[in-house]
């Protein structure tokens, strides 16, 4: 695991300690030339501030939107991004890869 990913977990913890709503997104599966490896994290707070990366910028916007919904609902969800889902998600991975991202709220 990259040290930057572990720093993100520390940040998520300190955000939560400060009373901020926090969601954590984690890359759980990749196919093809996915830009970020399995285990990469993105932390999002209730205001949409974020730290880390699940795709090197390609789909972060969509992940953050979903993360805000997860913060509201409290139920984790699995997102899938890739060329095949471009029309559904409007945010495809231009590199031709596909990724699955698990998004959960930090309670």
């Amino acid at each position: 695991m990259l040290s930057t990913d572990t720093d993100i977990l520390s940040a998520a913890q300190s955000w939560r300690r400060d009373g901020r709503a926090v969601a954590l997104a984690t890359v759980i599966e990749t196919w093809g030339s996915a830009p970020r490896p399995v285990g990469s994290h993105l932390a999002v707070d209730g205001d949409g501030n974020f730290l880390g990366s699940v795709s090197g910028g390609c789909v972060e916007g969509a992940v953050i939107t979903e993360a805000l919904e997860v913060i509201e609902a409290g139920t984790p969800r699995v997102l899938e991004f890739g060329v095949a889902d471009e029309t559904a998600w409007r945010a495809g991975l231009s590199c031709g890869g596909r990724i699955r991202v698990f998004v959960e709220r930090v309670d």
Partner: protein
Amino acid sequence: MRSDILAALNDERAARRAAILVTDIADGAQRLVRESDLAVDPLADVLAKHLASGKSGLVEADGRTLFLTVQVPPVRLVVVGAVHISQAMAPMAAGLDLALTVIDPRTAFATPERFPGIALVAEWPDAALGTTVPVLDRYCALAALTHDPKIDDPALKAALAAECFYVGALGSRKTHAARVARLTEAGFTPAQIGRIHAPIGLPIGAVSPAEIALAVLAEVVACLRRAPRSEVA
């Protein structure tokens, strides 16, 4: 994720202990498995495999899809002896993501000119370890390369006591036999002494300093990756 689980995961990392977060991706149910509890876990085999590789990933178990967030401390390599082999080893270690520290009390050897950009400590190993150099642990490899018992032995003793996943010592079989006698005299058990790789390095017929460095690093990687750490230790 529960805050207490996140805090525990961060605590394990700060303490340089391995841990795996097991997440059921269907409902988000989670548990943290510390390395010390791994052997008695229902998923012990698959967790041990992931821990050895250091890779996170999805697994299927009892009809559930689980994501394993694998957290392994960064591996440190401590080399005793600012010698020619260590010079050759420095760029190779960097390429392997091994955080290298070179210790040698002989200031003629331990010069920044000979080791540009390398963490270099011109102190006796027993003085340096735990002070200038972070204390050794199971995610450290130690290679003693000076041939000089005054310098090598204290480092080897510290590495054995800390259960470093790799302990290697340069020297012929005759040199090593004398070393075994000294360590036995000092109270180390045959099992502990048997963990020292000597002659050092995989047997690839290495001749030049760079080839010996390669053989040593290959042996370090083998010890790190080939078996779960509990079996190596």
